């Protein structure tokens, strides 16, 4: 990662240079989209969040203080925007619940959560990745963030700590708890043949 180039691009964006935004988008689109997709498990939602993130970068480039690497700053925006999107969905569901109290309403129908297939997963790991994303979604927010950044985005522990603005120790503890929780939850997902062994 060329941090100096990324800083220069952010500086140019703050001056309103559209070409700099295009270049930055070319560099970070995969990182932003992939993180949002892992978090939201929906391609349409991930594209919405990707748009939100780059609009935010365009508007907030001048407020980038340079205390962290630009990639860390962009990861942070992505996680926050993904969380905002999930909160918005939760509010919609709550409204749906209120609507469901009135009989004959469409919202009364139960919602089936779709099974998510990550487009980047290696073919031989597709089945396992599908199960992984089902259990990731059951984790508490902080553990989910730490796990996705570490195990899906493949960031070093220190980078995860920088993105989440936590100490290295706190991230290691979060990851340990996340893995323990995932192992417990996987008990319910194990195939019948393995369960009998």
């Amino acid at each position, binding site marked *: 990662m060329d941090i100096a180039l990324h800083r220069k691009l952010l500086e140019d964006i703050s001056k309103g240079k559209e070409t700099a935004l295009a270049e930055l988008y070319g560099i970070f689109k995969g990182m932003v989209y992939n993180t949002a997709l892992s978090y939201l498990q929906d391609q349409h939602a991930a594209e919405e969040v990707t748009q939100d993130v780059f609009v935010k970068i365009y508007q907030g480039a001048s407020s980038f203080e340079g205390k962290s690497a630009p990639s860390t700053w962009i990861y942070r925006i992505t996680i926050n925007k993904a969380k905002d999107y999930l909160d918005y969905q939760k509010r919609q569901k709550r409204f749906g619940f209120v609507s469901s109290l009135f009989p004959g309403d469409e919202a009364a129908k139960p919602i089936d959560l779709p099974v998510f297939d990550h487009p*980047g997963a*290696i073919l031989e790991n597709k089945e*396992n*990745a599908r199960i*992984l994303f089902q259990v990731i979604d059951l984790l508490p927010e902080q553990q989910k963030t730490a796990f996705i950044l570490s195990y899906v985005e493949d960031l070093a522990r220190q980078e995860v700590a920088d993105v989440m603005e936590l100490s290295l120790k706190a991230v290691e503890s979060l990851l340990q708890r996340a893995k323990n929780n995932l192992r417990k939850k*996987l008990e319910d997902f194990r195939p019948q043949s*393995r369960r009998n062994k």
Partner: protein
Amino acid sequence: MENWKEDILNSMRGAERAQPDPDVYKRILARIEIREKLEVVKRPYVALAAACLAFLIMANVYAISNNRGVSRGGSSTYDMEIANYNLY
């Protein structure tokens, strides 16, 4: 069983990054353009709202200061009327 769990936990290791639809960048530019237009449209309205607020404050200050004069005058008239009904 434990191996299976570890395989699941590590199933995204080495995975490729998913890429967004090629149209996403166009949509970002469209959103930025819309926001900038909205900002331009908003600015005169904000100035108008500030001018109205300033006018309302000035009008209120003027009304209050004038009312004080009226109430003083009213009080002196009232005193005179009372004096006229004095019993000697």
